[in-house]
């Protein structure tokens, strides 16, 4: 199982693990199941490009977003 905590490149979100409030908060940031995001960096926090926005997530949150690899060459 890959999560946003260790993914690289373009990935598709499969599932968000957490209670419904958490799921909705992420959905409002553009992180809903089915959405494609690009992982820009895995430094001290996870930085993503979600459509036209850049979003940073703490490692703890990122580990709760399950993803699948979309395509390596984005």
């Amino acid at each position, binding site marked *: 199982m890959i999560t946003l905590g260790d993914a690289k490149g373009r990935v598709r979100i499969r599932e968000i693990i957490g209670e419904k409030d958490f799921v*909705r*908060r992420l*959905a409002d*940031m553009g992180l809903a199941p089915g959405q494609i995001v690009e992982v820009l960096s895995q430094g001290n926090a996870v930085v993503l490009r979600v459509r036209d926005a850049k979003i940073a997530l703490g490692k*703890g949150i990122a580990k709760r977003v399950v993803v699948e690899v979309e395509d390596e060459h984005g």
Partner: protein
Amino acid sequence: MDRVYLLAQPNSGKTTLFNLLAGESCYVANWPGKTVEVFQAKIRHHGKEFLLIDLPGINSFKTLGKEEELTKEFILKESDGVTLILLNGESLYRSFYFAIQVLEMKSKAILVINKSDYLEKKGVHVNLQVLKERLGVEVVQISALHGIGINQLLDRILDVLEGRIKVKRLKIDYGALESYIERAEKIVGDRSVAIRAIEGEEKILSTLPNEKRVAIEEIKKEIGEKIANPEEMIAMYRYKFVEELLNSAVREVKVAKASFEEKFDKIFFSKFGWIVSIFILFSTLLMAFTINTGFPLNLLLSSFGYESIADLLEEYSLAGIISLFFELLSKLLEQYIPDSIIKDLLINGIIAGIGAVATFFPLILIVNFFMSLIEDSGLMTRIAVSMDRFFAFFGLTGKSVFPFGINMACNVPGVMTSRILETDGERLRVALASPFVICQARLLVIILLVVFFLTSPILQSGIIVSIYLISTLIFLLITKFYGKFFKEETSELMLEIPPYHFPSLRVVWWITWMRSRSFIFKVSQLLLLFAIFAWLMEYLGLANMVGAIIATAFSPIGLEDPRIGFALLMGFFAKELVISSLAISFGTADLMRISAELSLTIPEATALIFFIAFYTPCAATVSALFAEIRNYKLVLFSIITQLLIAYLLAFSIFLILNSF
């Protein structure tokens, strides 16, 4: 008067627009029932007046902080007035996802797409006509920063206020969920309420009578069994709607090329980004310190032999100029008012008190100014991201580095900066732990005592360094401890990173002023009260008695002199007073002689310095803490914790040094 509400996600340019429309006419109102500040202003356009209300930015309908709670309550309940939904041109997709949710509930709305200058630069073209047809509301495009499209916006507001424009509520197609939504609508009587209820919105569900609640839960369960999790389904259909909307209304003409932003961000977001961040914060603080008190540049200069420049720097620093002014004022009064209790109160109570407020103010202003610059340029979020890993150990987010850094300058703005944090829990924890960070005033007192009470240079520098290390450690541990103690869940970073841009000085100055003036109006009143109280003690001759009582508590660590006891009491009001109080009770300003007369042993002197470093920094901080968290029990609790920890540290260091 008609009301117009400004509603947006954070960073959309709400403050910029509000400032542009309201200018100086804005005032801050405390929202009824909540202690959150809301900006309001009367606006005139074509002879008509309306009240513009700036609601706190809201990130998500699943709210966290109490400010967002207020905004959500407005969206769900307020039915009058026009809502301006401000969209962030830098992230249209997410902004529209937010906007359509508001439009599902509010029909009297205007969609305002901000940052048109950015869109233009990026070659993004938005077809407003298509949006207007699809969404059923007026759409305008503006640049709040450059004042473009503002008149048109005001015209549209009047149109809606005066009913010249037909409005209707947005209806989104929820596909497979539609039949369930219809059923729920029959139960609760309104489509948007039905959708919110299916999403499990507590604010809606709690207003329903029990049997309706049960019926809704039934529908939710059915969706869950037959299709999928209802919250996720609804989010998915909304994103689909936004995607189709933007596909038909937005064209990207030019492809933007990778800019310096990407290169910069590569560094910031790498494993070593924190080094850059610390460098930026450190130089900013250094600059703020130096403008305010000349320190530490004056020390540096004089150690290189440029004493005259160092003196000049100190004299013409802001704090130097202000204290000079108050000195002159007291001298003047001294000459022209006849001796009486009134004169004494005026000079030693009130002017001393106002002087204390005044000398604090520049530092707060400067620190707020630099903070706003960092915030407005887009650096702040990057620094927060790069520091996040470290702070996560203690259940904080990377944003906590800001209050922490500012606390090193002064605890008053430090406590106030806790506001920028993500959750109420994190705000509370950081605010309560702030007094443990050594501020500039304490540093000065510590340096003086270390230099005159201890002779070995190794011991001197060793003590200062260990005080800083211990203070950082305590700050972090205390936030963790308070988290456990209040059963607050640890907060985690989740924020949008805006593009860099050159800060607008007008807006930065405005934000600085708005933040700083709460110091004048809230904190200073209490500070003045403390000052008058201190004067009264001195005037009634209670000082020595109280000093003796306090000193008994310190006899186990060899500090039984009542003059020290009283100095510590004065230090509670303001740390600088420790030195001046010692000077008054010993009848000399020469610390050398005071030190000789006290003849403290090394363990005793070190214990004293440690206690001074860690107990309650000053009355202003206590006032700021109260203004921020408005819970006197918690403030009292935090003072007791500070005294206790300071005492324990002093005691331990005393024992350790004594055992050698």
